[in-house]
């Protein structure tokens, strides 16, 4: 039985009358590339924020690498890396200054920070923007920098909220290779993305959240097996996703009404 990297128990978060995350029980094995899916407003980002300490849960427990987050927040944060929604960059720093800053905030010594910052900037193809403020970066460059900052301290769990959004195909390929290498070395990657093809290609395990509730969890094979019908084995993740979150075909009916478009 492999180690559990992330475990939640009845994790809940409410905002007034709205229950954004409703008693979810997640289990993510260490070294797993985990895709966390859901439609807009399903509770994905809220869950990631809770798992990374950016948002407190209303109730429930979270354990990361066997440590209770509430009791050991600093120890947990030392071992995780995050690319949050909005990326969390200090836009008035240059890329290298930001990486140096983050490295020091995570307790790396100066020499290590410097070495890793330069290597990451080279890898992300941002080294030639040494004097450019992050405020002047394109969206894709910011995304790459945020990812560099998330891995500079060598985290054991990496949380990525839409990491490939706005990143060009070339860089996306390099990032995927980097993430693949990290999982080979035992790093757990917890990823949300709207691009189901990417999730299908990268992730070994998937969970689907819908209206705050966890509606499916397991390996891709397990999810396929769980889908009703004889064609379950050949279904794509998109088809599985749509069947689980309850696509009723209403969109097709509404599309029929837009006759002037076709």
């Amino acid at each position, binding site marked *: 039985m492999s180690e559990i990297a992330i475990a939640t128990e009845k994790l809940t978060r409410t905002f007034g009358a709205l229950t954004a995350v409703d008693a979810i029980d997640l289990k993510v094995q260490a070294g797993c590339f985990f895709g966390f899916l859901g439609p807009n407003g399903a509770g994905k980002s809220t869950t990631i924020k809770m798992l*990374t*300490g*950016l*948002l*407190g849960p209303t109730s429930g427990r979270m354990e990361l690498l066997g440590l209770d987050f509430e009791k050991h*927040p*600093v*120890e*947990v*944060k*030392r071992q995780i890396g*995050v690319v*949050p929604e*909005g*990326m*969390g*960059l*200090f*836009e*008035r*720093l240059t890329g*290298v*200054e930001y990486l*140096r*800053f*983050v*490295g*020091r*905030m*995570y*307790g790396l010594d*100066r020499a290590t*920070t*410097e070495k890793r910052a*330069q290597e990451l*900037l*080279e890898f992300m193809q941002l*080294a*030639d*923007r*040494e*004097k*450019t*403020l992050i*405020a*002047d970066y*394109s969206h894709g460059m910011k995304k790459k920098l945020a990812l560099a*900052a998330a891995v500079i301290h060598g985290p054991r769990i990496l949380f990525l909220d839409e990491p490939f959004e706005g990143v060009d195909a070339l860089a996306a390929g390099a990032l995927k290779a980097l993430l693949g290498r990290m999982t080979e070395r035992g790093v757990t990657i917890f990823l949300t993305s709207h691009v189901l093809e990417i999730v299908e290609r990268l992730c070994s395990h998937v969970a689907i959240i819908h209206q705050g509730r966890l509606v499916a969890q397991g390996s891709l094979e397990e999810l396929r097996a769980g889908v009703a019908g004889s064609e379950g084995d050949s279904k794509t993740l998109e088809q599985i996703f749509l069947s689980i979150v309850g696509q009723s075909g209403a969109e097709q009916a509404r599309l029929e009404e837009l006759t*002037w478009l076709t």
Partner: protein
Amino acid sequence: MADVARVPGVPAQLRLIAGLRWSLLKNGLRQKNNRWDLVGVIVAGVFGALLVVGLCFAFFAGAYALLAKNRASWMALLFWAIFLWWQVFPVFVAGFGANFEFKTLLRFPLSRRTFYLLGLGYGFADFAAVSAICWLAAMVLGAAVARPEVLPVMAAVSVLFVLINVTLERLIGSWLEKILARRKTRELFIGLFVLSMVSLNFLNPVLQRYGRAASPKILEYLPYLAWLPGSLAGSAVAGAVHGDPRAFLLGTAGLFVWLVVTSGLLWRRFAAQYRGEEISESAAPTPTKRNTASAAAAEEARGQNSNGEWLPLVPATVAAVVLKEFRYLTRNGMAFLTLLLPPIMVVFFTLQFGKGSALREHSLKPEMFFPAIMAYLILILISPAYNAFAYEGKGIQTYFMAPLRFQDVLMGKNLFLAALITVELSLSLALLVWRVGWPSAAMFVATIGAGAFAVMGQLTIANWSSLSFPKKMEIGKMKGQRNSGIAVWTALGVQIVVAAICTVIILAGRLLGNAWVPAMAFTGLTVAAAGGYAASLGPLSRLAEKKRELLIETLCR
């Protein structure tokens, strides 16, 4: 093939533009964060209406009086007033207002001519233009009542004047749009703007000192103003009134030339926009390819690559925050400019009230000047501490993701601010000594002690205020860049209390006849405040954890 029946004509598009501007205004009111903002807008609206109506009467009376008393040559003054208002007010507002990029209209199917006309039409639909046209109409009416035969000339000159002003205003506006679209130029523009506003404080002392000597020089240059639209319009009207066809023709021809030139330039600007000129940030700067390894080594050699070791007595995380604060300051034009304020204000006050000032009979002694100036400067310099996370933006998340106690962040910020205040006050004190001389040793020490107490005492409460009432601010913007109301009142209350304590102690020293009593009292208070500060860091760290959602939500918005 798109099934558009027909492209709307220019009048219909002008109506659409007017509707757009009205919607922007209406929605701007709807988005006010609280009712006090709305009250502020309503008060400003009433004030604006009163200004326009009141000045309509003034322009009417002015034109009437000048023509009735046969002083038509003075009409130029009225035209000048309108000209300056029309051209300067929109520039003033541009820094504060929401910047609507007119060229976004290019997504619609417009010809270049239509785009130009819409641009002009857009220029008619702003406050400066509407008010100026109202005043011009009042002038025409006043002139017509005084001298009915002048009406055709006044009307024609006014129409020309309106066209020149709207064209010139749109020309300046389109250049401003270009400047404000780019971060660096926008910040530079706003910085220069603020600096020029601050410099206005010096107008009075400078005029008092050099006014008489400079006036002949100024008079020498006045005739050159005759070639500007205000003077030309006045000259045309005066020529018509006085039966001087040469003056009338020269004035009118001059206005035509202005109209042709400004129209040509505006056509070129709009044509550049029409062709798809890229003016926004998305035009990425040219990369400068460097060997990063050698660049890093070079920086290391210069000692600029330090990330904390240059502050050996503090934890690396605190030092990293200090360094980050320093970098943010150097990249925040506005904040950087506020550092110029203390020495500028010292020079200003000593010019006004110091020995050798224009107000010699009210000149202040160093004994009073030192504590007073120190209190004023601390008031200016410490106010950012009450909203210390204002410029963090989405970066605030980094503090909560990193494995650290939040007190390290607070200490880093406070340490940097304290160092900055120390440098600023040292510079200002040196200037004070130069301008007004030394105070007594006891008063000097007491002033330093009072300053230390005032800063140390306020930092604890300022930290609490920063965590409890955060307000996002953006570098390079002026609109809405102020602390939350509660933070402002908190700062004011604390500063009044601290100032009262300091005043009582200084007066007590005088009453007791021992000038060193305040120095000793302030030393004791500073030690106590430092103890309170140290004790507050733990609870404030826990408060930060409680307030993280508020901070993230407010600053990442």
